[in-house]
């Protein structure tokens, strides 16, 4: 029983950060109908931004988060303006967007290797030592931070999307760009906001992963997981991204805990493929006709 609860806690902690990354995929997909594979590179930059805010600028922990989020938000918007906007204006087929995203990802990763270098860096210890004991359960301080920060960020995002005028405009544009332009919505601005939001959350996720693991130029590959989670939950659906992320993380931790961690990633991809075969739209995804 204790082991079960322990796995549950670990799963929720990792799952919440997967969700933080997955919503970035989903937001962009919901509006532009392509998977922004440069998202991982943005997360990696977030990890570095956080690292240097803490070490070089010696800023407090909370401020470093904000700085990383603002930085990656800007990077994501810049990426949209420089790489995707020209494609949009030419009404390029979606394959071009994917290829551009992959190219941008490789570019950013190598830029970091060339300037900062390929070595691993360790975040300074920001928390006291030792896990928090809750009866027989022990919760790592970093794991707890991961969960709390992710939960707060995701709640803020949900409130923004659900309650504000711009949030409604994003939902309208996700359904149909033309119709939302007919309401007077500036769809170009909606796209900027979506990239800024996804980018900022990516920065937060980058800092969390940097703290939990290490910082290195390929850390962005971890977004493979959140991409699987986003597809699993239903690309383009925010609740889907959340559910998919938590489920994937729970399955992963239970597989590692009860079977072997060697099977962990294998299972993740098996789930992805099974989902695509059985229900291509994911748990909560838009059906093809919804998106007509």
């Amino acid at each position, binding site marked *: 029983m204790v082991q079960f609860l322990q796995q549950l806690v670990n799963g929720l902690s990792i799952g919440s950060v997967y969700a933080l990354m997955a919503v970035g995929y989903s937001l962009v997909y919901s509006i532009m109908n392509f998977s922004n594979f440069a998202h991982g590179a943005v997360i990696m930059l977030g990890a570095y931004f956080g690292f240097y805010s803490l070490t070089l600028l010696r800023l407090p922990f909370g401020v470093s988060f904000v700085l990383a989020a603002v930085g990656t938000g800007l990077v994501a918007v810049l990426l949209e303006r420089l790489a995707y906007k020209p494609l949009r204006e030419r009404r390029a087929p979606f394959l071009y967007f994917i290829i551009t995203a992959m190219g941008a990802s490789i570019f950013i990763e190598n830029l970091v290797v060339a300037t900062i270098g390929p070595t691993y860096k360790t975040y300074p210890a920001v928390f006291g030592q030792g896990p928090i004991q809750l009866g027989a359960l022990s919760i790592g301080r970093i794991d707890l931070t991961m969960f709390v920060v992710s939960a707060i960020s995701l709640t803020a995002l949900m409130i923004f999307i659900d309650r504000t005028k711009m949030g409604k405009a994003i939902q309208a544009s996700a*359904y149909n760009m*033309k119709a939302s*332009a*007919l*309401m007077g*919505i500036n769809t170009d601005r909606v796209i900027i906001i979506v990239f800024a939001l996804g980018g900022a959350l990516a920065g937060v996720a980058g800092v969390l992963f940097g703290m939990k693991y290490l910082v290195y130029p390929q850390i962005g590959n971890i977004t493979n997981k959140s991409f699987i989670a986003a597809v699993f939950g239903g690309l383009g659906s925010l609740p889907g991204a959340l559910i998919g992320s938590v489920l994937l993380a729970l399955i992963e931790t239970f597989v590692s805990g009860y079977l072997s961690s060697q099977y962990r990633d294998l299972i993740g991809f098996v789930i992805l493929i099974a989902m695509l075969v059985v229900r291509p739209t994911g748990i909560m995804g838009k059906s093809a006709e919804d998106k007509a």
Partner: protein
Amino acid sequence: MLNVRELHVSYGGIRALRGVSLEVNEGEIVTIIGANGAGKSTLLNTISGFLKPAKGELEFKGHKLGRQPAKIVQLGICHVPEGRLVFTNLTVRDNLLLGAYLRTDRKAIAADLEKVYALFPRLKERERQLAGTLSGGEQQMLAMGRALMTDGQLVLMDEPSLGLAPLLVKTVFEIIVEIRKLGKTILLVEQNAFKALEVADRAYVLEQGKVVKSGRACDIAQDPAVRAAYLGSKSVAGGM
């Protein structure tokens, strides 16, 4: 109010409009009738700023129209698009409020919402329902209501009766007349020429991207060529 002069629009090599000129005056219902592929939707989409004309001019209340749909809405042109395109993922109420996206006067918005509900009591009943759960006819009403919420003075309507049962078609045309009574000017694109000519003041006949006839709706309805092509054997006089 709206002036279209010598408009040419192409999709790649396909010339959809070849020198269309027309005007709509304040308070009128003007209809454009034409067969499938005549270029009716192309014309409305160009007015709304989605397509770039190769040649020609668009002017609305003295303003030249460019290619920014949001600006055109702000100038006072609203558009009920072909296929309705209601936001199926949002509630009826949210759909209507999105129509008022550019407006800031809460009181006026609330008043207009009541007007729309008075015009379409069905929408009021289904206020909290997702738009995707509405029937085709209800979605058409929602698309009209949403356009009215922009408070535009000129309403462009692209085949509002398409795909509706005969009884609903009748309702839609009655509503169009009601909308004019609210002080709106209407440019109505229809394949249901019979009904459209009944409610319109003036009409243009579009064939393969060109205006081939124009005039008072009642005269167009009597035109032998138009009757043969668009009105079939239906008696126009009986319906008037």
